């Protein structure tokens, strides 16, 4: 039997910085958890004040761990409820529903060197990279761009001997992305995880420096799925009409209506939730559909995308 959902128990909670909380999660029944690889994430259902939030978090435990999962959650000031739920309400012993972890950001095994660039909490997938035997044997360098006050927060999480350099916004400490990318030897794969500004800047710099696209990898996180204008979604097959509020995603509204739509990353990257559009004008925010598919407007990723028209009719 393929288990697609997990029941997890909060085994430990500790605040590693004012806005960073570490959770240790174990199987509620004490059974071994599915092992995961470097770069994997888990989708947690977090009970919020008004509704349940389903957020994806990178696993920071060593690859292959079966005794428990570790995640680090940053409290987002403009939290829609997920990170606030973790920081305000979650306590040891609480039970959480989770989906079997997925991985959309695995290190490339044929690489000759792994070059990672993290922005703030975007360090989390790379904490598992640095504990991966293959990555360590190949060789890896991690550049972390963060607030100066947080540069020491992650030090206890870094394996001994890992090549990690911290950068912050002060003269002499900023990361010179162009210079870094220009000097890399052949076979280097580049991974970037951070706010979209950093991701975009690194991808642009890699293009400008002549990097082959197949050697540049990115994982987006953050607020792409946060709201926009409210609109109405009509689910043709289910015969339902759903109001999509300003602060929720189309996928969340569909789930609220009781329709179980398949999903994996909830960040517009994996393509699992792709849904045919029958009528209406989608506003795409995903990284999955091609430019042509976006222009055609016949498909939508409801986890991050919305509507330009007052109404969107979905084949769901």
């Amino acid at each position, binding site marked *: 039997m393929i288990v697609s959902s997990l029941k997890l128990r909060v085994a430990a909670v500790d605040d590693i910085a004012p806005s960073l909380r570490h959770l240790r999660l174990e199987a509620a029944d004490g059974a071994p958890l599915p092992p995961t690889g470097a770069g994997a994430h888990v989708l947690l259902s977090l009970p919020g004040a008004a509704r349940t939030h389903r957020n994806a978090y990178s696993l920071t435990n060593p690859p292959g761990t079966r005794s428990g999962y570790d995640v680090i959650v940053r409290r987002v000031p403009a939290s829609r409820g997920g990170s606030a739920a973790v920081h305000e309400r979650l306590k040891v012993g609480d039970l959480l529903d989770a989906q079997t972890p997925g991985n959309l950001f695995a290190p490339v095994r044929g690489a000759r060197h792994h070059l990672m660039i993290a922005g703030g909490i975007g360090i989390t997938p790379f904490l598992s990279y640095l504990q991966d035997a293959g990555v360590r044997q190949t060789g890896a360098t991690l550049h972390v761009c963060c607030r100066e006050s947080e540069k020491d927060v992650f030090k206890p999480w870094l394996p001994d001997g890992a090549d990690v350099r911290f950068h912050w916004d002060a003269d002499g400490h900023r990361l010179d992305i162009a210079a870094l990318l220009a000097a890399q030897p*052949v*076979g280097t794969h580049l991974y970037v995880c951070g706010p979209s500004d950093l991701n975009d800047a690194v991808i642009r710099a890699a293009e400008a*420096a*002549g990097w*082959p696209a*197949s050697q540049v990898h990115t994982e987006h996180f953050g607020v792409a799925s946060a709201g926009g204008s409210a609109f109405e979604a009509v689910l043709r097959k289910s015969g339902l009409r759903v109001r999509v509020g300003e602060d929720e995603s189309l996928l969340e509204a569909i789930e609220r209506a009781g329709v179980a739509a398949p999903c994996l990353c909830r960040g517009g990257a994996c393509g699992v939730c792709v849904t045919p559009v029958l009528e209406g004008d989608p506003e795409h925010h995903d990284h999955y559909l091609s430019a042509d598919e976006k222009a055609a407007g016949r498909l939508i990723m409801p986890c991050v995308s919305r509507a330009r028209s007052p109404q969107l009719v979905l084949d769901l």
Partner: protein
Amino acid sequence: MTIAASDIKSRPVYQPLSPEAAATRHWLVLEAAAQDADACRALVQAFAPVQPALQVWSVGPLTLDGLPVAVLADTAALAPQLAQAGPFRVSDRLYVQGTEPFIWSVAALAAAAGLAAEQVQLAHAGSLRRRVWCTHCHGFTEGVTTSTVPCAGCGRHLLVRDHFSRRHGAFMGVMVDAEAPGQRPAVQEVFP
């Protein structure tokens, strides 16, 4: 010579070399015997914009108008030449023009040096002659211009197919008279 269209979908298709402006260093590797005056003129024109960051290597004597050329004695001399030029960087590009056995020999050296396929452009020029890989003895027969050829490894008469191996840089050869020993079609000159 232009390569005829093939029914075999895996057959490589070549485009004229075109230097990538975003790359920082460029190497142009040529098989002198495969280039004619038109090909040389086209190369000079295409590569003029990147000339300050360009190195041209030619296997066999060749002159290009305005581009200095380092002449190498044979294909074997390319391996030490590449080793000396390295280590290569992600932003480097290699451009290769010549017969198919030549360009795929260079492609194999480039891959061994760590260059990704996207960093290497290949263009065909000159003869259509093929390197043939024998499916029976796994030996190579070089410089094949005919529809069937005696294998340089095992002596079987091989039918030269359009199936191409990028790894070997060679076309598949299968025994042509396996069903009826001694009955062989007339040998035709098809890869001049």
